[in-house]
């Protein structure tokens, strides 16, 4: 037969387009999606209509205006919406820098779906949950070895919540020493995640933000000027969101400690460091790992996740509780000690995610974890090398010293063609690829942040690079093709004019029905 030619340079892709109605439009009076369990007649005979005891003022007078829809229609609707969603299982998701998109092992997803986990109540007696507590404890031990810290709590259900817990511990620590009122400043850096500044502000701290030196390193001289008897803490990511690792980090933590501050470490970018270097040796008092980033739990459209929070010995008593311990061969839940910040989330955190992380660690072992770091950095430097060859792309700051990700810039491309990084975001969708700009503020002009992780093969990386090259060529030859993207998406460009206007924004369907007018 004739050889089928497949030599196109970029993937021919079209996102699913079901032109799906909003669920309320599927309403058909009388249809049902599911029948919930009811009461036996004999039980009803004994207590009557249970709602009879509702006080008159508390009886619902009008049923909620939920749609009535048959089960198959509901299933079809949500499956169609899932098809119109490009999860990391479906694309080379190296474009979501700072979030460490990696392969989600299927076995882990199967393991969490047993009733031995899903049907556990968090207040069950310790004796009845020994298996689950053992998994918490084993994961704690592994995290201690990986970080050098002395104890972990898994209560925080995101990195942001872990940062909040750490800022809370900083406050509790200084209060315990009678310095709660005098130490009111937390120092961070502009290339750390926005949550570091925001969560410290939630705890009432004044934020001091350090800007980098000309090579992109956090500026030690600026830190020395910033510390004072008012310094409560220092929170930093290392490597920062630029992928630049600060080799003088130990000097930074020493300076802050000398001023009486607490050093806490945002390890959202830890993927290139596993088995290579640790929080302890860098002088940190606390750190956290995002289990949904570094430890291959999925991101689930934005949670639930876990920010595993580790502390050095002097800070153990402040940890949110309960935490799991092993006593005489039995796993026990230890409540909060005096001075603990109490709790940051209900119960023990997201147990499914802790199990996923444990399974992943056991699948890799010490050698595998170090391979994760090595290959993630290899992949990143390969990508870096290739991206800098693309016309219009650059990477501000120092060359040749990047770990797991890089924050790049299209400034030259934008200056020369008018095509912006936002335009490229939409155009990348046309090739079935996700691409992210970066956090605001855009310190790096026309930014984009790529983090390839260990999960992608050389061919995957090459595919992503070819798509960016293709778009760069388009920008120089036919910029309109990029500016008018997406062309192969479920939908075309949004008219965003209403999103910031209180008279026009529609945050629910009922608000839309009230506000939408006939043209």
């Amino acid at each position: 037969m004739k050889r089928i030619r497949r030599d196109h340079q970029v993937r021919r892709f079209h996102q699913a387009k079901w032109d799906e109605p909003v669920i309320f439009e599927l309403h058909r009076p009388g249809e049902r999606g599911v029948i919930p369990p009811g009461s036996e007649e004999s039980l009803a005979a004994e207590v009557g209509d249970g709602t009879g005891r509702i006080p008159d003022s508390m009886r619902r007078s009008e049923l909620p205006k939920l749609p009535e829809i048959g089960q198959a229609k509901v299933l079809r609707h949500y499956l169609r919406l899932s098809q119109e969603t490009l999860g990391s299982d479906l694309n080379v998701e190296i474009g979501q820098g700072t979030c460490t998109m990696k392969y989600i092992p299927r076995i882990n997803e199967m393991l969490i779906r047993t009733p031995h986990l899903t049907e556990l109540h968090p207040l069950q007696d310790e004796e009845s949950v020994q298996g689950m507590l053992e998994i918490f404890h084993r994961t704690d031990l592994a995290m201690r070895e990986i970080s050098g810290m002395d104890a972990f709590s898994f209560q925080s259900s995101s990195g942001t919540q872990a940062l909040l817990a750490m800022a809370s511990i900083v406050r509790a620590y200084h209060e315990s020493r009678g310095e709660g009122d005098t130490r009111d400043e937390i120092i961070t850096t502009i290339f750390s995640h926005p949550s570091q500044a925001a969560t410290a502000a939630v705890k009432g701290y004044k934020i001091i933000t350090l800007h980098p030196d000309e090579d992109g390193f956090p500026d030690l001289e600026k830190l020395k000027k910033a510390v004072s008897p008012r310094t409560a803490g220092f929170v930093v990511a290392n490597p920062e969101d630029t992928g630049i690792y600060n080799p003088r980090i130990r000097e930074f933590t020493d300076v802050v400690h000398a001023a009486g501050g607490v050093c806490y470490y945002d390890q959202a970018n830890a993927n290139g460091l596993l088995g290579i270097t640790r929080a302890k040796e860098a002088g940190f008092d606390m750190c956290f790992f995002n289990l949904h980033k570094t430890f291959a739990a999925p991101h689930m459209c934005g949670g639930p996740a876990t920010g595993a929070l580790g502390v050095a010995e002097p800070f153990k008593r402040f940890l949110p509780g309960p935490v799991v311990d092993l006593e005489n061969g039995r796993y026990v839940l230890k409540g909060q000690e005096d001075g603990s910040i109490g709790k940051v989330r209900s119960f023990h955190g997201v147990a499914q995610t802790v199990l996923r992380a444990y399974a992943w660690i056991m699948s890799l072992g010490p050698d595998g974890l170090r391979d994760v770091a090595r290959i993630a950095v290899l992949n990143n430097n390969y990508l870096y090398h290739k991206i800098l060859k693309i016309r219009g792309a650059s990477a501000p700051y120092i060359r040749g010293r990047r770990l797991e990700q890089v924050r790049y810039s299209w400034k030259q491309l934008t200056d020369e063609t008018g095509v912006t990084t936002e335009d490229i975001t939409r155009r990348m969708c046309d090739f079935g690829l996700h691409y992210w700009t970066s956090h605001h503020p855009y310190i790096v002009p026309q930014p984009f942040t790529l983090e390839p992780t260990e999960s992608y093969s050389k061919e995957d990386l090459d595919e992503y690079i070819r798509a960016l090259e293709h778009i760069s060529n388009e920008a120089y030859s036919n910029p309109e093709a990029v500016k008018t993207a997406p062309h192969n998406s479920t939908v075309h460009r949004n008219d965003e004019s209403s999103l910031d206007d209180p008279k026009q924004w529609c945050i629910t369907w009922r608000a839309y029905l009230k506000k939408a007018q006939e043209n």
Partner: protein
Amino acid sequence: MEAYPLTRTRTFAHPYIPNTVPEVQAEMLKEIGLDSVDQLHDAIPESLKLNRDMKLPPAMTEHELRRHIDALLAKNKHGGAYLNFLGAGCWQHFVPAVCDEINQRSEFVTAYAGEPYEDHGRFQALFEYQSLIAELVDMDVVNVPTFDWAQAASTAIRMAGRITGRRTALLPKSADPDKIMIIRNYCTPVMELRLVEIDSATGRIDLDDLRAKLDADTAAVYFENPGYLGIIEDQGSAISALAHEAGAVSIVGVDPISLGVLQPPGGYGADIVCGDLQPLGMHMNYGGGQAGFIATRDEETYVMEYPSRLFGIVPTEVEGEYGFGDVAYERTSFALREKGKESVGTQTALWGITAGVYLSLMGPYGMQELGGTIMQKSQYAAKKLAAIPGVGLRFPGTAFFKEFVVDFNGTGLKVAEINRRLAEAGIFGGKDLSGGFPEWGQCALYCVTEIHSKADLDRLAEAIAKIVAKP
């Protein structure tokens, strides 16, 4: 392609890390001008390097892993095999199979921060979630889920603080002590919490004490329906009116599964409604199924104080398409760092989508029937337990939903002892309240939902009757 030699087994690459293939590594290193993978970490000074193997167990194959984890988890006793009457913030409800099917979908499980053009379905599903909850709670604005109910209540209180420019919030003493702990941590030092007495006979809020504690610095009055102890607080209009007279915001926390039969809080004056989504299609997951929601009227003053993402519906440049995008994104800490409203990051979005699936399946009549069934079954259980000599109800005259306080003081036994013996009979008894509410002695919070059959409830009553029977 060469034929494969018979004897060669390749073992270089870890299944999760394709570029561990030595030839590929060599090719990539050459491309970037390095000789060895060890040079990749040159940016890290030697003094900070671990330079030893981590002390962790060796890698397992998938099969070994499965056996290992299955063996660990088999040690757990679970609510599928035991009769479970624990609630107190995490509840065992019926989960429709379609909810599990949708929240297991690879696309939703592995999606994260995609754009409206590649994740149109995720944006729509979350907009629909907001819209479905809005109908249930009868409000026009709902946010993308928060971490849990405690977080939602915390943020509602801080929103009220910003709106009123005041610093204190009043909460009933009957609230979950753990929830109060979480709220206190989140609000300190910006907001101060003060607890309001409850009526010792009815469990409802003591209006006189509330009146006495309201002052010019009160930003919010927070109360719940049904409350932590299951109590239906029927003084909502009076509480909200008192709050409003004092210039404070009325915040009501609800268990959303009650709203097929109970009045939505806007009907008795709530300005902000919050609660937990876990009852709406999430398994208990050892407490990993919690997710919070916040709802308000569609007023700029309220909307601009949300820290969370809010998805809105918009036209696209092509007539006939629905588009979805972020409403007032510049509120958030993603945009403004420490100057944004509180802080936002990963929350619990997948549970929001799942709650949307649940409400779509149930519809208005499903929610109404379910609410009635829960009331019937919990009343039946309470009646059976109260009939046991020595056992009574802590608040016998007060209407409750799903949960109720059982008083064991007359039995001479501790709740811990009763629960230990119930466990031997394959039953998880109610939550021991003697730690959180010591003034009541030996009381326990029992939770009865639609999943319990009459036979289950009879079995519970018989087991307790046997345990507390005097010889």
